[in-house]
Each structure stands twice: as C-alpha cells, then as structure tokens.
C-alpha cells in the first residue's frame, strides 16, 4: 500500500512535468521510417508521419492496409505476436516507444485504446471502468468513484447508467458498450486516445454520439482514429492519413486530402473506385 502511494505520488509529478512539456511541443507522436513485420510478412513499410497534440488524426484505407496494425504498434499491443520486428522509430514526446527501459504498462496507460468491437468485461459497469486505475494501484474508493464518474460523463454515458453502476456491463446496448469502452480508456487518464474503427458495429445514432464526444474530447486528448468510413474521417478529422498495402500514401489536412489529394490512389479511394 505504501509502495502504491509512493508510486502514485511519483506518477503525479510525472504528469505535471508532461503538461508543461506539451504546451510547447508541436508534435505529440512522430513515426520516422517506421517498418513493422511479423514472420516474413511486412505489415508496415517506412511510415513517416507526425501527429500534433490535441488534434483528431484520422487514418483511412482499405482493409489490410496496415492502419490497425499501425495503431496497435503505438501502444505496443503487437508485442504479444511471436516473431515481430520493428525498424525505424516512433517517438512519443520525443522518446522512442521501442527504446530500452520503456515501461509498457505505463505506455499503454498514456495511450488509451478502444477496439473495433465493444468489449464489455463480464463485470459491473463500475468495475469495468475501475479496472485500469486499480491495476495502477489506485485503491481509494473516493478517487475511483471520481474517476469513474468523470470518464462516464466525458463519454456521454453518465446520465444513462448512473443509477446502475453496479449492474453487469453486459446488459448495455452495443452503442452504450462502445461508449463504456471509451470511458474505460479515459479512466486511465491518458494523453492520447487510440480508436480502432470504434463505430464499425454501431447504428448511425450511436455513431453520432461517439463522434460528438470525440470532438468534445479533443481539447483534452490527442486522438488517433482509424476508420474505414471515409465520411467519418471527413466529419471529425483535423488531419488525415491514407494507408494502402502497408504504406502511407498521403497525409495532410483533412479538407485538403479530401478535396485536392496529391496522389491519384487517394482520390480513387475516397471517390469509391476501390476499397
């Protein structure tokens, strides 16, 4: 317990340092010649891009273009796959993600992730949200409750579930579950949100709710959104990258990319010639 407290205190100081840092920086995440392969298959080839703080950065591209892989590289979720190989660098606040001595747990806490399919653990709503903070060693009931409430509010879910926090999260509808996942990611108090096609299984209304939430959240987080709905990227993205066959074809302001793409493949994709 004492150790946990100490750690918490340490983490706190760390966050303060980061806040001062981010105010000056213009690049939050930056990939330099980043390649990724597992086995003999190359999934990503020489990716170069910069993601700025407090923007919604969307990644579009057809299936198997490497966009999800890229996202999962950012919080090193691909580590579990056998025989993976990274080349080049990805910098988070200037520090290499794959450098020596990186605490993967801490990294994943800083980059909260939401998966394509909403995964509500068979626990109560409260415990779903408290999972991450508890694993960081936060035990205090008051602090946990505050975190849970705050994240649920940020995900526009609080009003719908505040009376049944201790009921099973599996009883929520699909859209609610996905917002629960979003809230669960935010309960980690991350700096970046990684969203992997978060609306792929949802109806238009739920989708809109999530999109609204994202725009609202921009001020607090850097958001990276992978989507296969180009319209979604157009709606919410500040800047957009187009991935194809493991390569980044084009990256730029969303409006520009959608109206005057540099690369013919990009225009083919967004006009629906393939995809």
């Amino acid at each position, binding site marked *: 317990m004492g*150790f946990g407290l100490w*750690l918490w205190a340490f983490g706190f100081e760390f966050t303060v340092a980061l806040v001062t840092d981010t105010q000056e920086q213009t690049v939050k995440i930056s990939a330099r010649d980043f390649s990724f392969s597992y086995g003999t298959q190359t999934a990503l080839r020489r990716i170069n891009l910069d993601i700025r703080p407090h923007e919604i950065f969307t990644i579009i591209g057809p299936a198997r273009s490497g966009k999800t892989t890229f996202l999962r590289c950012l919080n090193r979720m691909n580590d579990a796959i056998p025989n993976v190989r990274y080349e080049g660098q990805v910098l988070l606040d200037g520090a290499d993600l794959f450098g020596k001595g990186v*605490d*993967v*747990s801490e990294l994943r806490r800083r980059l909260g992730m939401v998966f394509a399919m909403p995964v509500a653990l068979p626990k109560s709503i409260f415990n779903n949200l408290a999972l991450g903070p508890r*694993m960081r*060693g936060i035990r205090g009931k008051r602090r946990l409750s505050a975190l849970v409430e705050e994240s649920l509010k940020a995900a526009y879910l609080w009003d719908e579930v505040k009376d049944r926090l201790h009921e099973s999260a599996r009883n929520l509808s699909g859209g609610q579950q996905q917002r629960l996942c979003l809230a669960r990611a935010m309960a980690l108090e991350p700096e970046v949100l990684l969203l992997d096609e978060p609306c792929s299984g949802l109806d238009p209304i739920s989708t809109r709710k999530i999109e609204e939430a994202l725009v609202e959240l921009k001020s607090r987080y850097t958001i990276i959104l992978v989507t296969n709905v180009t319209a979604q990227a157009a709606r919410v993205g500040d800047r957009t990258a187009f991935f194809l066959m493991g390569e980044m074809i084009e990256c730029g302001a969303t409006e520009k990319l959608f109206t005057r793409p540099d690369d013919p493949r990009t225009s083919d994709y967004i006009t629906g010639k393939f995809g």
Partner: protein
Amino acid sequence: MNLTRDRVVSPILFAIASFSITALFVIGVFIFVEGLPVMLRVGVWKFIGSSEWLPLEGKFGILAMIVGSITVAVGTLVVAVPLGVGCAVYLSEFASKRAVAIIKPSIELLFAIPSVVYGFIGVLFIVPFMREHFGGDGHGFNIVTASFVLGIMVLPVIVGISVDALQAVPKVYRDGSLALGATQWQTTTMVTLKAARSGILAGVILGMANAIGETMAVIMVVGNAVVMPNSPLDSVRTLTGNIALEMGYATGDHRQALFATGVVLLVMIMMLNTLTRYVTRKRVARQ
C-alpha cells in the same frame, strides 16, 4: 513494480507447470526401480508371455491377466459405446434444449459416484443374475458381469465427452444437410456423427482407459481366477486386481512382480494415451 512482479511470476509458474513432469518422472522411477529387476530376471517375454502365476514358487507370468484386462475393457466398450453414444446422440440432436440443460449436468454428476458403489451393485444384482441364468465357469463372477459393471461406470464419461463433441459440430453443417432435404436422422448419421467422429472416439478411448485402470469395482465382480478365459462366462483376473489383491501379502520378488505388473499396466495405458493423442491431433489438423 508490475514488471518486476511479472518477471518473477513466469519462472514460478514454470516451476509449477513442470511439477507434473517431475511427479511423472519420480513415479516412473519408483515403479520401474521396484518392478524392472524381477522382470529382467524372469525375462520380459516370459513375464508377459506366460500365464503361470505362482509367485511363491518364483513363477511370474501375467499373460492371463493382460488378456483379462483387455477382455474386460473390450467388454466394457461393447456395453458402453452403443448406450453412451446413443444417449449422447439423443441428447445433442433430438432432445429439447431444456431437457439437455438438466440431463447433461446430472449425468456428469454421476461421474462422481465412487466406483465401489458400482461394484457393490454388481455383486448385489448382476452376479446372482448371471449365475442363475448363464452359469459358466465363473459362477456369476465373470467377464460379462465385469463388463456390465464397468460399462455402466464409464457411461457418464462417454456420454459427457460425446455430447461435447456432437455439440461442437457447427450448426451450418446440419443446416446444410437439412436444406438438401435430408431427414434429421440422415443428417445425424451422415453429417454430424462423421464430423464428431474423432471427438467421440477420444471419449471412448478415455472410457477404455478408465476401464483398464479400475480396480476395486472389478475385484468385487470378476472372480480373480488366474486363467486364460475360454468364454465370456469365465472368471479372469485383471492387472489392477492382481496388484490390489496380493499387495498386502507380498514380499521380496513377489512384491517386485506386483510392481512389474504396474509397469506393464503403465505401458498399456501410455499406448492408449498415445492413441488418443494421435486421434485428437488428426482432428485438430483437419479443422
């Protein structure tokens, strides 16, 4: 902190997981060290190839018991497979979901009935029945009796595993067959049973291993005579029975011969196990 803990956990878990191997090794060493010398002294072929068992005169031949174990196991399957697989097919293909939800766990509960209770029921009902209606050399204590007792005993195992195997067959297979105009029975025999074949076979082999390994229930009903059986109505002794019967009084070579019986039993079970692995691996490969 978390990472260090994770680094400590892994080797600890590895040590725990290796326990089974270690235990197996120690068991093997203890059984073989006690059993092998007498086996080698008598000669392995003589030990497993002769059926003269006169331990006090130094004659150790366990062929009759090997045959006894195998015949009882085969008899068990003859009783248990039609009943068990039939019951499983009924449960998974024809019975209502609600009935299955009640019956399947109940049958699995029966897995917990001590084998001695089955033996007791055998002595009480099946032995007198066999004696009065069939007679024979075993006077009711015979292979058929033992097969019935063990057959009933392994039913829960076979039913449980077969139902699992049948239920694991994807619904689309059945739908495909039914869509072609096949009746439910045709679908079952031609599609479902074929697809679940190896799973059911694994259950049957496991049942057989249980039958070969069972001791007390068998001692109670099989008569334990050390002879080559000429008919299913003869009494036999099984390998397990031999150990349990004589262990209390055995000393010196006699005792070692009982450990050697254990060695033979172990080898037989390992062979069955390898067979199971082969069967299940083929299933995995196909899928």
